[in-house]
């Protein structure tokens, strides 16, 4: 004690002198609401009626932006369904090219040329949230309907709707595969797990610990837009949101949000819900935070108002602080038994079995491992990840700081490598869902990595990704 005290006095001295000298040079800090969420100033009922009146304009603005960026048509790939057999996989490149260019033209230009001539397809740029100024979580209609039916809980926002067409999102309800019961295949019974039905569906399949974890993952807690205060975007005082409202059946329903990790508000990028399938193999969690365990992630999400990175605001709305050993561990253990969908053509090394794969898939694997350089980061043996974050430096190709629908496009910075196992089940792609099909991702990486694939190689690569 004595030494610590002495030591700290010793250190305190020069520090405080420095502060004294520093004072005249200190500027005012920037205004507080660059970082902190202000309290609402408009009475709730007024804000609500304004939001409702404005909703159409908000959605039209978003749709105009989406139509300008993408071909949103319903064009499924013949005979290719998602793992549960409930929804076809969409095909074709959907990102629109700037007038008068081809993908080949683009791949022959340098990043600087593309930037200076403003030729990067805008669908490759960061995708804005439907309403940047309000942000927050937005659920697809299918999830809203399911939870209304099962729990009479309202997940509908009065200020915005979900923006992508239904055929461009994952199948719903998604199948559930358990690492503990591979022989059973999908155990979801075609239902959406909810606090009203989970026990009946899972009893006999999982342990008491897992069951308790599941119960907690399905229990709604108030957070930023769904809570009981006037700072909400749901009509009635709300019980809140459950983990599996976004990670429907431990997969994703494409519900989206904004990154918790960035301020100010206009710079917060969109986040597409990740699947929890195969989370047992991941060493880092979250596109930016790199949390080191499912436990940390689970505990933290509830503490900070689910994806707002804001413990201050969460505290006002009713934070939930799950007990690390008695609750968090169980929630984590439940998540950790969620398996990836079966990939019958892969061998134990994650490589195609030539006896089962088609010629085109095998050709695609060759591109993936070789010229395309995909396997530099998506390593087959480690679940098509490398448990690293990478900076793809997309801003080499476009001028940063441009504003679309109140959202400032800034460099993405390092983002973690996502798994490609079961990838056909989880459109849209990239952390913000800016790419709609696997063919889009191939064009994207072809350009960003500068690997100059020809059309056949691109097609082969897509066929391969579908087999994962």
């Amino acid at each position, binding site marked *: 004690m004595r030494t610590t005290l002495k030591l700290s006095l010793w250190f305190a001295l020069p520090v405080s002198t420095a502060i004294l000298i520093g004072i005249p040079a200190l500027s005012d800090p920037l205004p507080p609401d660059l970082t902190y969420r202000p309290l609402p100033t408009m009475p709730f009922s007024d804000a609500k009626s304004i939001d409702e009146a*404005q909703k159409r304009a908000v959605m039209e603005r978003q749709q105009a932006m989406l139509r300008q960026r993408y071909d949103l048509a319903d064009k499924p790939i013949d005979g290719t369904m998602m793992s549960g057999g409930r929804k076809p996989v969409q095909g074709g490149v959907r990102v629109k090219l700037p007038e008068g260019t081809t993908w080949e033209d683009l791949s022959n230009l340098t990043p600087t040329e593309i930037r200076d001539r403003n030729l990067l397809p805008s669908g490759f740029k960061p995708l804005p949230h439907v309403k940047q100024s309000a942000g927050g979580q937005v659920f697809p209609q299918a999830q809203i309907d399911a939870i209304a039916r099962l729990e009479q809980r309202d997940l509908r926002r009065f200020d915005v709707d979900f923006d992508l067409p239904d055929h461009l999102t994952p199948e719903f309800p998604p199948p559930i595969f358990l690492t503990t019961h591979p022989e059973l295949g999908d155990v979801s019974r075609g239902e959406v797990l909810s606090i009203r039905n989970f026990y009946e569906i899972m009893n006999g399949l999982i342990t008491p610990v897992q069951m308790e974890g599941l119960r907690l993952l399905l229990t709604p807690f108030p957070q930023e837009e769904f809570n009981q205060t006037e700072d909400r975007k749901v009509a009635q005082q709300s019980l809140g949101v459950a983990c599996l409202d976004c990670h429907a059946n431990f997969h994703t329903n494409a519900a989206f949000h904004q990154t918790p990790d960035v301020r100010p508000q*206009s710079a917060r990028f969109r986040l597409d819900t990740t699947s929890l399938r195969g989370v047992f193999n991941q060493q880092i969690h979250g596109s930016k935070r790199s949390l080191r365990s499912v436990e940390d992630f689970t505990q933290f999400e509830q503490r900070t108002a689910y994806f707002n990175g804001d413990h201050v605001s969460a505290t006002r709305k009713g934070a939930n602080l799950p007990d690390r050993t008695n609750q968090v561990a169980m929630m984590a253990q439940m998540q950790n038994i969620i398996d990836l969908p079966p990939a019958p053509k892969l061998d134990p090394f994650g490589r195609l079995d030539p006896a089962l794969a088609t010629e085109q898939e095998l050709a695609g694997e060759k591109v993936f491992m070789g010229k395309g350089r995909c396997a530099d980061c998506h390593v087959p043996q480690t679940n098509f990840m490398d448990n690293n974050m990478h900076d793809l*430096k997309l801003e080499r190709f476009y001028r940063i700081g441009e504003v*679309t629908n109140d959202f400032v496009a800034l*460099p993405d910075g390092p983002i973690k490598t996502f798994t490609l196992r079961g990838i056909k089940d989880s459109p849209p792609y990239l952390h913000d869902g800016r790419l709609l099909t696997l063919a889009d991702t191939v064009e994207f990486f072809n350009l960003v990595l500068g690997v100059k694939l020809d059309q056949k190689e691109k097609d082969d690569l897509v066929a391969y990704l579908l087999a994962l």
Partner: protein
Amino acid sequence: MRNILTLAILAASVSGAWAQIGNPAFMGADTRMQKPGDPAPNQTNNSDRVFARLVAAGGAAEVDFAHMSADRASAESVKNFAQRMVKDHDAANHELAQLADTAKIPLPEGLLPDQEAMKAKLNDLQGHDYDVAYMAGQITDHQRTAHLLEWEITGGEDANLQQFAMKTLPIVLEHLQLAQKIHAELTDASGGIR
């Protein structure tokens, strides 16, 4: 150089073609609206006013420091940078002053205390040391300005000021990158250069 700038302003205003939409919960209860959620022209909130004042003060200081540096800087790159600051910021300051006038926002006069301190510091320096200190100050100033512009885009209510923020932001980020590059060259560091 001039051409690039005009082009850039054009591109920025095109991409901002869709009007901005705020969060009404954070608007004043007495906000006059032309449509629901769409504040009447020149209607300001506290963010607009703080924004206009801080950015105007920053812009004026930019020009002040740049004039000083045109004389006192030694490296050619720093002199050129200072010239560009005079040119770009003069135009932007002028536009902001007009917008603030229309919105009846009084702007501060003279330098803010931290800018005074910076000026005093620069006054004591010469040659290479001056160049490095000026460029380091420019990096911080442009970082702060970029954040204020980003803040205004979703935090403000006056559409004119928000448009101003949108079209100015890419230019400020360009200045920032340029300042980082020059600073890195002067100090043999590569910090901040992407």
